[in-house]
């Protein structure tokens, strides 16, 4: 078990190092997510009465679209210089590769969310420090990463790889998006914990189901 963890960490660290040196993914995704935030604010208007209704939706559109861009990149970079083949030659279980890439994607998305969310809260004049919102974001991003890592490994081997990931990813993560938006509404409204419990439960269930299912089927996606 401990050994598997070390292997997962090695793959994860490889992605981190590449990112530190090239700064390809996080910066571009960050800029994109901020643009989505700004454009949607223009599209919906930013009056005080609108904030409560549209703000959670805008945040989640930005995080979802940003997430898709990041997920597309995580396997697209592996496609260059046959790095994917190299990764497959590693003497590790395919599930280990899945978890390594998953940890990488999750960290990228989290890094983007850590910057985007406070900016979002400031733009809409909402309280900046919201630990409950952090919990919602972590649970939703685990869901995004679990499904997204599987599908981006799949999409990268199709002819229309850039469009394939969102087409596959978005319908499957509908429960996460609905729950995340609903939970964010309750957080921003300052409602008690009980109100958001249902949504947290759905996200936890989704995360567990998809982490298990994707671990099981990942080997069929990357096999040559």
């Amino acid at each position, binding site marked *: 078990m401990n050994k598997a963890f070390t292997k997962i960490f090695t793959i994860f660290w490889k992605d981190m190092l590449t990112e530190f040196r090239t700064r390809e993914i996080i910066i571009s995704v960050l800029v994109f997510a901020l643009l989505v935030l700004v454009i949607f604010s223009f599209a919906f208007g930013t009056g005080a009465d609108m904030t409560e209704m549209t703000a959670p939706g805008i945040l989640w559109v930005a995080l979802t679209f940003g997430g898709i861009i990041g997920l597309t990149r995580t396997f697209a970079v592996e496609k260059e210089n046959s790095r994917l083949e190299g990764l497959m030659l590693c003497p590790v279980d395919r599930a280990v590769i899945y978890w390594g890439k998953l940890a990488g994607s999750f960290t990228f998305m989290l890094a983007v969310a850590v910057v985007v969310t406070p900016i979002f809260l400031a733009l809409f004049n909402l309280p900046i420090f919201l630990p409950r919102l952090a919990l919602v974001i972590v649970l939703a991003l685990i869901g995004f990463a679990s*499904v997204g890592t*599987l599908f981006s490994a*799949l999409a990268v*081997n*199709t*002819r*229309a790889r850039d469009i*394939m990931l969102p*087409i*596959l990813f*978005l*319908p*499957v993560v*509908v*429960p996460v998006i*609905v*729950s995340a938006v*609903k939970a964010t509404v309750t957080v921003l409204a300052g409602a008690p914990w009980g109100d958001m419990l*249902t*949504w947290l439960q*759905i996200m936890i*269930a*989704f995360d567990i*189901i*998809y982490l298990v*299912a*994707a671990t099981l*089927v990942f080997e*069929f*996606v990357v*096999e040559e």
Partner: protein
Amino acid sequence: MNGKHALRNGILWGLGFALMIAALYMVFIYVPTEKHTGIIQRIFYFHVPVAWVSFLAFFITFISSILYLWKRQTKWDAIACASVEVGVIFTTLVLITGPIWAKPVWGIWWTWDARLTTSLVLWLIYIAYLLVRSLATEPAKGARYSAVIGIVGFIDVPIVFLTVNMWRTQHPTTIIFEGGLTTPMLMTLLVCIAAFTVLYVLLVIQSSGLKTMEAEIRRLRIIKAE
């Protein structure tokens, strides 16, 4: 195709034809018009069986996809794919017949109700399934990828339903089970469900048979080229 298959198909065609004629007779002549919603309620005998078949189709795909990844036999892939094709067409029909009924009864074409939304999300997932298949770089990869989507997509159904149900719901859910249907109505519905199920089985047999033959031709071509 051997004699046994021909006999089975013959029986299924005969049965399907008889059931369809019976269903048409029952829907348009036998069953009384519903008191509150009027003539439009008859679309229910089309809408419900079609919805049932689309869920059945995606369930069959789920099972066949697991069997394909496990056994790697072309026939399971052919059944899974054929079932999705039929399922997508039937889901499209569900999404068309639903609003035709909803407009006069609810006064709106569409509402974000659990069943409607789940059907729409399902439709999108399985369109992605067909897209991946056609855009895969080689048929063997397409078969594997679509099997993965057949599994991962299907386990999403209960989660989507549950989530949207918490979100909002409006669909007339319990009419069938609360005994709101009179005996002639229930009889008509059951005959329609049987008719459409037989139609589904026939379509899948035809389509998967065709796909198996296509795979066989591809295999022979490769042998010949070598």
